[in-house]
């Protein structure tokens, strides 16, 4: 469970996150909003790439912001990126296993490989695990990134538009994988996505950001019907 209070980020005069207070319950939660709403900035704060000027982030009762960025992976924070970042030079299994190399207590190389293969099977990549990621098609690279996020013992998995650029049937497969993450790993999942079908299928609750402010939060089907949310996505006509 995540409790975020008064989270504010400022880049000069731009305020991508403006006093966001929101709770993410266990399971898979959606985070949606139009482009520039502050979703990726929110993930970057959780990852430690961006320092907030105010606010607190409590994950399972622990203060996430107090940890150095590279130590958060050790804590159990995992993420995927909007532009997929599987490491091209490494094989599929090395890509996944390397996530455990900086987490103490992940066992020896054989144990890490075993865990990596398990994660690769979990996301359903059907290639030789010793293939270089650079030679794989976009769908498989996405899945490698998701496997990197679920391998070992993740506690918080952040997925940043994992379905971007994927055709429908592959998005469907991805949705099936995402919905099984909380149950299989015990991790909390936050999904940023523009594909509302995917959000509707994966997330029980959803929060909506617009211009850095939280405008709605609650059960996904209610949030998606909310008039303010529809206005934020489609725009409103200013009275002349």
């Amino acid at each position, binding site marked *: 469970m995540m409790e975020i209070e008064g989270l504010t980020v400022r880049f000069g005069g731009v305020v991508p996150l403006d006093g966001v207070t929101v709770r993410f319950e266990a399971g898979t939660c959606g985070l949606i909003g139009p482009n520039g709403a502050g979703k990726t900035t929110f993930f970057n704060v959780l990852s430690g790439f961006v320092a907030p000027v105010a606010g607190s982030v409590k994950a399972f009762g622990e203060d996430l912001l107090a940890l150095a960025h590279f130590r958060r992976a050790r804590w159990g924070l995992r*993420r995927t990126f909007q532009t997929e970042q599987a490491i091209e*030079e490494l094989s599929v299994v090395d890509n996944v296993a390397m996530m455990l190399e900086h987490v103490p207590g992940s066992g020896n190389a054989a144990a890490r490989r075993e865990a990596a*293969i398990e994660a690769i099977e979990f996301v359903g990549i059907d290639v030789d695990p010793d293939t270089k990621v650079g030679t794989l098609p976009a769908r498989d690279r996405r899945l490698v990134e998701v496997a990197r996020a679920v391998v070992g013992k993740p506690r918080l998995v952040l997925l940043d538009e994992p379905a971007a650029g994927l055709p429908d049937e592959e998005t*469907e497969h991805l949705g099936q994988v995402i919905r099984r993450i909380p149950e299989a790993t015990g991790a909390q999942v936050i999904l940023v996505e523009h594909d509302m079908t*995917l959000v509707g299928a994966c997330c029980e609750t959803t929060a909506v950001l617009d211009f850095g402010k939280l405008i709605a939060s609650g059960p996904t089907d209610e949030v998606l019907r909310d008039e303010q949310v529809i206005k934020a996505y489609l725009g409103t006509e200013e009275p002349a």
Partner: protein
Amino acid sequence: MGAVGTTPAPAAPSKLRSGGRRLQPNEIRGLIAIAILLVVSLAILPAILSVYWVTVLTAVAYISVTALGLNLLMGRVGLVSLGQIAVLAMGAWIFSKLSFSTSLPYPIVLVLTGLITMILGTLVGLPALRLSGLYLALITLMLAGAITIALRTMQFPNGGPGFLGNDPNSSAAVRRPAIAMSDPAFFRYTVIVCLVMFLIALWHVRGKPGHAWAAIRQSEPAALAAGVNITLYKLWAFALASFMTGVAGGLMASDVGRLYAISFPTDKSIVLLAVVLMGGIYSLWGAVIAGAFYSLLPALLDDWGLPADLLTILFGVGIIQVLLTAPGGLAQQFPRDMRNLGRLIMRLARRGSSPPDDGRAAA
């Protein structure tokens, strides 16, 4: 539930689980190539070549270790350093001072040289934590210039008493290992030390540091998200490259016996960059090729009576060729060309033997 169904994702076939990792065909080819290279250089070459060419090949060996340092920095971590020849000079100087001032066994002096150079070279790498690309290249080039000036001012190489003693007129030669006093024996010794350096590099590239470097090179955010301490691993890369270059410098000092400051001009670091790029930065073989370009080619040109300036033109053309057609350098291009040649020969051979069959089939 919309587009997303309720059936679980299909399980991947169980072939994934079948045991550990097997050797890939290209790895087997690599092992064969290493074995051939070792047999040729340890057993055959020292026996058939004159002392002059054995000395040239000794230089190829330790320069390829110097090139290996830059190859790792650029190819694996994405850091450009134009100060590697200055680091080599530091290694050579530290080794000669240690060998004059102590009576420690040769291998220990070599390792100590590596470790001291590692500390100094890591300092050269400190700017890499803040800078990258062209700016890092410029800063390392300037540091290399500063080191060159410092070494000249202290009348490098000075053979005075003790580690810091200064006697520019000393004419003592830097020592060699007792088991390898002759040139052919020292060549073999150098090849084995260089092999150890390449194995250390391979062990790094294949293991945890190599994975972390690959992540850093592609995307620092992705590396951070994987829990990689970027500061530590960048410094580690500089430390490893400097250690190797220091050891290479030690071998060089023993090989030539007497060092001269003019052997380490700052601009040689740029030549090293050129040959490392031409050899190929994504393969450790690239470093071996780079060593040959750097040390063997000038000797060959000299032997053929061609001017040494021709090298500048050759390297220039070579760099353009690499940038345009083979970003992986010769280490990648050569096996590819050989495979194509093999396929061509096979096809010609098949065509040569097949016409009678075709004739019968047509009839």
